[in-house]
């Protein structure tokens, strides 16, 4: 088992790091305070292929692997949690399901512009009554002639109003399963601007404030029959499969947040002087940093391992990466919360001040324990695998 990264990944990391430092970091505080979606950054990232990193070249992507994509989200998140999640939600939650389950026509029509960054993607599963209990879906899709008619709403949708292409889940009927009547859920591709598809509340959040989080409303929204994604009734499987990959993205975001906070804190404690010496000279600080760094490293290994497992799946569909993805997301998110909180503490009063990045990192970190499957859900996935 070789822990050194191949050359292409080292070079890719340098690319993402440079880009993050020069293009993303200067805007981080501003977009957070203004709750502004960094459209200009998305355009720059599109130019350099960051919006389609793991997508094959024949579909407009860069032809790289999941690990490279994870490193991109990681490096972006080190300086800006918002920018990290924009790429993650777009790539894992919208591009990936269409690439995996879509017809050739759907891939050409949707994956190509998404991978090139000409269009932005989003994923609509969550509803007011359906969070962890995804089966609590109420949005309905009814086939009427050549069209599906959607009615219902989705909430807390990342890239909400800024996206162009949405993977939406809706109830298409009832089926009997193990003696019970269950909802039949299917997946659909919906384009922005479709009549009947409007936006509701813009959420005012604790963190990742630049991320566009919106309510999606479907009122007799008609989409072509061809926009069914995958087989009818396979929607729940598609959602779960997609979230497995999304977890790797969010784990990378959490990892990046933790690393960014740790790095900033190490620099700070070297310079900050109290009682005649730098606070980095006090053993309390040193021991805390040691713990933080070790946890971050452990998180990193879990994240990279999950990414690598998904890369294996691409060549061997029998491989499952749900377990690794859940472990990575569970651990990285909790480490991110812990490390960013400690980072604020180690900065003392300055840690509470907006001009020093750590307070934003701490607010950004919290959501990683919640979205794309709460830490509780991850524990369910992990324990189910252990006990089967």
């Amino acid at each position: 088992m070789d822990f050194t990264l191949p050359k292409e990944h080292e070079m890719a990391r340098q690319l993402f790091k440079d880009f993050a430092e020069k293009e993303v970091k200067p805007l981080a505080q501003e977009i957070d305070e203004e709750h502004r979606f960094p459209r200009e950054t998305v355009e720059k990232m599109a130019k350099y292929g960051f919006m389609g990193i793991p997508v094959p070249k024949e579909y407009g992507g860069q032809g790289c692997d999941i690990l490279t994509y994870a490193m991109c989200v990681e490096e972006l998140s080190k300086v800006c949690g918002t920018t990290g999640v924009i790429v993650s939600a777009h790539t894992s939650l919208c591009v990936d399901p269409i690439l995996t389950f879509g017809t050739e026509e759907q891939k050409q029509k949707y994956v190509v512009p998404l991978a090139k960054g000409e269009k932005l993607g989003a994923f609509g599963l969550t509803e007011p009554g359906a969070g962890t209990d995804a089966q609590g879906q109420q949005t309905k899709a009814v086939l009427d002639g050549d069209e599906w008619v959607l009615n219902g709403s989705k909430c807390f949708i990342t890239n909400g109003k800024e996206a162009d292409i949405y993977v939406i889940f809706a109830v298409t009927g009832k089926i009997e399963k193990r003696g019970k009547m269950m909802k039949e859920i299917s997946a659909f591709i919906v384009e922005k601007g479709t009549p009947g598809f409007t936006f509701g509340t813009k959420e005012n959040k604790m963190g990742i404030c630049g991320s566009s989080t919106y309510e999606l409303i479907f009122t007799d929204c008609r989409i072509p029959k061809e926009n069914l994604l995958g087989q009818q009734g396979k929607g729940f499987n598609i959602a779960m499969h997609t979230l497995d990959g999304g977890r790797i993205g969010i784990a990378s975001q959490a990892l990046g947040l933790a690393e960014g906070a740790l790095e900033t804190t190490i620099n700070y404690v070297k310079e900050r002087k109290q009682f005649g010496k730098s606070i980095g000279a006090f053993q309390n600080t040193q021991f805390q940093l040691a713990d933080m760094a070790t946890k971050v490293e452990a998180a990193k290994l879990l994240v990279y391992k999950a990414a690598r497992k998904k890369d294996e799946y691409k060549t061997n569909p029998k491989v499952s990466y749900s377990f690794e993805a859940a472990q990575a997301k569970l651990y990285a998110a909790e480490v991110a919360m812990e490390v960013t909180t400690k980072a604020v503490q180690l900065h003392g009063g300055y840690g509470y001040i907006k001009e020093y990045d750590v307070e934003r990192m701490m607010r950004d970190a919290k959501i990683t324990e919640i979205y794309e499957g709460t830490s509780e859900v991850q524990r369910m996935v992990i324990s189910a695998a252990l006990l089967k």
Partner: protein
Amino acid sequence: MKVIVCIKQVPDTKGGVKFNPDGTLDRGAMLAIMNPDDKAGLEAALRLKDQYGAEVTVLTMGLPKAADVLREAIAMGADKGILVTDRVLGGADTWATSTTIAGAIRNLEYDLIITGRQAIDGDTAQVGPQIAEHLGIPVISYAQEIKVDGDKVIVKRQYDDRYHMLEAKMPCLITALSELNDPRYMTPGGIFDAVKAEITTWGRADLKDVDDSNLGLAGSPTKIAKASDKVRKGAGEKVVPESPEEAVKYIVGKLVEKHVI
């Protein structure tokens, strides 16, 4: 159109300069990067590729690990990379370096050679013009803008207090300033391709029309008599003058002593 871009791998002296506990430079901790002026030259060449379909070859002289900057260039869009490396070429000053690079370039066809104005380690700004001299082609330094018009280049050449718009017939050599443009980033796909790309490696034997007496340390007319690292700053002098006049006299004296004024 064929463009050769000469690039150099240098320690990042403008970025994270780190010091050892004894105050001397920690060279090992410094990142190796593509020299900023060279990167601007590469970007200029890539724009010629975008606009005119030029073929861009990047060339570097250095240790084997200098191949990294060639791969970075390919990941940005360059077509071919050539590494000139050989033990006998080491320790070269600008004369020997320019001789070596000219010797390598004589194997290639070119319309335009672009080099950076100066490297952030040597800071001499000599190799570019000297390569042109060895090859017998015109040189235009301090290029702020480069346009191609048929078989000519039109260059905005910067001076301290003015600029010239110059026209020169190709083949010629241009030295680029980092202010020339904003270099593009690599792309992830470009990186994956670049790592697989084949780098041509040349040694002493591949250099054309050069004499051994002009290569490497022995072939360098300038020799280092002494070198030492500047030590990190600590507290200096502090004075409590009796009057503002005395304060001014002290400060002006120091400014004159240090050739600030």
